[in-house]
Structures are given as structure tokens and as C-alpha cells.
């Protein structure tokens, strides 16, 4: 894992710093394929596999063909015993301090490791979820827009019925209006004619009365005194 740290920090060292740019440009001539910065290649899903927290799995895979499963463990034990017996590493007070801090670190990692990892994953997932929500909302609103548009088109098809009804209304109004005026006209004409008829009736009545009066007058005038004496 520390080797991986060196590799990663070496890479960042190459990319950052004032001489980093020159290094990148200089190494560009060594690259055979065409360089393109987009699309950015995806990160691996999980970190490198490690055994016992610090030893990369590649060490075990490297040693397996020659020494089998117990190879790396024998190497570790041998190295440790060699350094102890030859006093390359001297046990002193710092060993116990190292044991103490090692216990604290291992306890911390075992206890809080998974929760911290899920916390980090949750931060990233929230980011993705927010963006996904925006996308889903946009898609939902567009689908809703399509639905509304289809509904409007269906409504438009029924428009001719509305126009027919309106046309009928207007025709009825016109018809009613015409009939009213016709009615009014007949009434007026009838009134005029009635007037003339009444006038003629009046004339005839007046003539009749006049004739009756004249006949009465003449009869009264013609009643001579001898007729009066006779009665």
C-alpha cells in the first residue's frame, strides 16, 4: 500500500509543480498513442486488494508460484527474526510506544472504518442522486408536456361540434328576429286595414243615421195636421 502511495504521489508530483508541466510535455514524445483528455477514464470501483490491512495482494500473487501459500508469511517472519537477532532493530521503549499506538490505530480502523467508508460513499451518492433527480424531473416534465399536447390535439378535434352549435344558435336568433319583424309588419298592416274598414263602417252608419233622421224628419214634417187630428 505504501508503494501505491509512492506511485500516486509520484504521479501527482509529476502533474503539479512548476516543473511538472515541462515533464508532461517532455514525456509526451514518448507516448505512442494519441493523447486525449476527454472522456476522462473512469476510476476503478474498489481500491487495490490488501491482506491484513497493509500488504498488497500482488505480493502474495508474486510469491505464490515459487513458495506457495505460506511463502510471504515465512518471508515476513524470517525478516523480522533476522532483524531482531542481528540487532538491526533494537527493542527499546519505542517498541512499546509503537505497540500502543498500533493498537489504537488498529482499533480505530476496525471500529470506525466501515462507517467512515459508508459516509464517504453517501456523500458521493447524494451528489449523484441530486443530479439524477434533476434529470428525472426534466424527463417527467417533458413527458407531461407530451401528454398535455396530445390532450390539446384531441380537444381540437371536437371543435367543429362547438362551431355547429354556435352556428345553430345564430341561425335561431336570426330566424326569431325575422319572425318577430314579420309579425310586427302584419300587425301594422292589419291595423291600417282595420282603420279603413272602421272608417267605411263609420261612413255607412253615419249615412244610415242621416238617412234615418232625414226619413224621420220628412215623416214628421209630412205628418200634416189632418193626420194629427185623425189621431
Amino acid at each position, binding site marked *: 500500500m505504501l508503494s501505491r502511495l509512492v506511485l500516486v504521489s509520484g504521479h501527482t508530483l509529476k502533474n503539479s509543480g512548476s516543473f511538472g508541466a515541462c515533464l508532461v510535455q517532455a514525456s509526451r514524445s514518448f507516448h505512442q498513442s494519441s493523447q486525449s483528455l476527454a472522456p476522462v477514464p473512469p476510476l476503478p470501483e474498489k481500491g487495490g486488494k490488501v491482506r491484513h490491512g497493509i500488504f498488497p495482494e500482488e505480493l502474495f500473487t508474486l510469491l505464490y508460484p515459487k513458495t506457495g501459500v505460506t511463502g510471504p508469511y515465512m518471508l515476513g517472519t524470517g525478516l523480522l527474526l533476522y532483524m531482531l537477532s542481528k540487532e538491526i532493530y533494537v527493542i527499546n*521503549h*519505542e*517498541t512499546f*510506544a509503537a505497540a*500502543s499506538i498500533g493498537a*489504537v490505530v488498529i482499533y480505530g480502523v476496525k471500529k470506525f472504518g466501515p462507517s467512515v467508508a459508508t459516509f464517504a460513499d453517501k456523500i*458521493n451518492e447524494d*451528489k449523484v442522486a441530486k443530479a439524477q433527480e434533476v434529470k428525472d424531473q426534466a424527463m417527467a416534465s417533458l413527458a407531461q408536456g407530451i401528454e398535455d399536447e396530445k390532450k390539446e390535439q384531441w380537444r381540437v378535434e371536437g371543435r367543429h361540434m362547438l362551431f355547429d352549435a354556435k352556428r345553430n344558435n345564430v341561425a335561431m336568433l336570426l330566424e326569431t328576429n325575422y319572425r318577430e319583424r314579420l309579425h310586427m309588419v302584419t300587425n301594422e298592416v292589419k291595423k291600417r286595414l282595420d282603420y279603413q274598414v272602421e272608417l267605411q263602417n263609420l261612413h255607412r252608419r253615419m249615412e244610415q243615421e242621416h238617412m234615418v233622421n232625414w226619413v224621420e224628419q220628412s215623416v214628421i214634417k209630412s205628418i200634416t195636421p189632418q193626420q194629427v187630428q185623425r189621431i
Partner: protein
Amino acid sequence: MMVSFFDQFASPSYLGIPNIAVAIALPWVLYPTPPARWINNRLITIQGWFINRFTNQLMLPLNVGGHKWALLLASLMIFLITINMLGLLPYTFTPTTQLSLNMGFAVPLWLATVIIGMRNQPTIALGHLLPEGTPIPLIPVLIIIETISLLIRPLALGVRLTANLTAGHLLIQLIATAVFVLLPMMPTVAILTAAVLFLLTLLEVAVAMIQAYVFVLLLSLYLQENV
């Protein structure tokens, strides 16, 4: 040459290279630059979350003029906390145990806050020397006391950090030596002492983080008074 306990107070060097140079450069390696990606790996996500959260909290009581100090204070905090925590590992050298480094941080930053205060708002900055509601006869004495308190601040900042870390490291080494020496003679006592050592290590982890935080918090407080 036997390693003595007082060697930690001297700045060590190995093969002519002072260890402090390597120790100061080490935190930079542990905080990689975030790549130009939207979703990062767990390490960068957590580091970014922590730095954002911390800076947000630190800048809350400051007005807009104080926000210029955000980068400085946040990077100082990350630097100090990383150095303190790395110093708990065995066979390491903690630069913050050196008074020179801590005074080198405390004096210029404190002086900057004082000069900013005196230059921009001298009345308010001098007004801090007299707390509200003091009885009239006490005023001269209090001004002197507050001035001394002001001038001692950089010393306090530097020495607080140095003393805490040095004392902690010294204690760890002493108790570890006690365990080492007692183990062949009285194993039971050695085991008890080892338990004490374990608890002390836990305390030192806490102290490492708290002291870094207190350093930066006090600086932000001094800034708040003056900006």
C-alpha cells in the same frame, strides 16, 4: 550513542539532512490534489468534506473582511493536525515540538491581526484594552493588565502548542521506558503500566487534534476582534 530523552528537544538531522525538512514536507504527500472529477475516491471525498466543514465553522463568527484569512487558517489547521498526528507514530520527529516553529507561526500571525486592527479601526482596537463596566478607579491598572495580556498572546500561543506536544511525547517515552524496564522484573506491574500507556496514547491523540484546533481558533478570535 544511546538515545536519551532530551534528544527530542534538539532538532535532529540524519546524514546531513535535517529531519524537520522531511517532516514538514510529509503532510503535503498525504493530501493529494483532487483530480478534475465530479465524483472522487473516498479519501479525497472525506478530506474535502472535512476541510469544507471546518472552514465553514471557522468563518461563521468572522465578518467579510476576515474571510480573506480562510485559506491561511484552514491550511494551517490541516498542517498542524497532520504533523501532530504523525508525530505519535514511533521513530518520528514532530516539528511542532520545536519552539522555533511554533513561534514562527504565532508571532507573525498575531502581529498581523494587531496591525490590521490598529490600522483600520484604531479606536476599536484600543477599546479592547478596557472591558465594559469596569469601576473607574480600576481603569489604569486594567489597561496595563490588558496590554500585558495582549503582548503575551503570541508567547502563549507558541508555548502552549510546544509544551503540550513536548510533554505528551515525553510522557509516552517515559512510560514506555518504564514498561520496557519493568517487563523482565515485574511483569504484572509492567502490564498495568502498559494499560496506562494505552490510555495515555488515546489522550495524546486527542491532545494532538485539540491543540491544533485551539491554535487556529485563538488566531481566528484575535482576528475577529481586530478586522
